[in-house]
């Protein structure tokens, strides 16, 4: 009996994609705290925290709102390496008191759902497109 595994799908860099969209907003930092794949390894969900800082609380809040709008618009942004199917806020934006000596911060967390572009699968490893035969039993 021959065992055939589905092709290994190279995942696009969603963190870089998000950063390319939000980095023009000053005072913003982001990091990914979780990445979860579906059972077939095609769809990925990125949990990302995005902080917005500014000299005043209102300015930080305005930047966090600009980030929120940009993130929710991710499915409409052109992205050569992948497809963003859905982006949803799961926490915030909420004011996060860092202490009196720190700039005001608003924090939000998002879940961003992505998958590779179909043509990208062939581009990354065409030999595996029709299944990879790894052994016989």
């Amino acid at each position, binding site marked *: 009996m021959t065992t055939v595994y589905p092709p290994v799908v190279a995942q696009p860099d969603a963190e870089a994609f998000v950063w390319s969209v939000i980095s023009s907003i000053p005072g913003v930092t982001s*990091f990914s705290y*979780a990445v*979860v794949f579906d059972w077939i390894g095609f769809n990925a*969900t990125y*949990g990302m*925290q995005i902080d917005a800082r500014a000299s005043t609380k209102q300015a930080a809040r305005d930047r966090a709102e600009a980030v929120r709008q940009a993130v929710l618009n991710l499915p409409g942004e052109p992205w050569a390496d992948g497809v963003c199917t859905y982006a949803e806020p*799961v926490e915030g934006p909420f004011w*996060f008191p860092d202490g009196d000596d720190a700039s005001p911060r608003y*924090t939000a967390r998002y879940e961003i759902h992505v998958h590779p572009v179909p043509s990208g699968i062939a581009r990354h490893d065409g030999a595996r497109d029709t299944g990879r035969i790894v052994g016989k039993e």
Partner: protein
Amino acid sequence: MAGPATRYRVLDPSAPRRAADPLVADVARAMLGEVVERTPHGPTGDLAAGWQVTHGRAPAAYLLTNTATRPGKNGPVPYAQFVEYGTATRGYAQPMVGPVMTEWRARVGRRR
């Protein structure tokens, strides 16, 4: 082709929540274990030891909270949020709850 309309009278509105209660309790306890596993263990151990699941006011509602309970220290752990979300001076966070929430949303959430 549409048939005749059927009317139902709900006799016990909270029955679905009561039926789901043990399932939600199982999920809450599983999440608790995963959060505890992810929690960094500092000098006091308050944060790692403080996680607990309690029943909410409604059926099928459970709360995951963190409260230090050792002698002389009983109450919320004040630095828990900074471990989860990071601080201004220490730029990194060590999320305990967020990754577990993401994992469980994907596992039992509305998208599957």
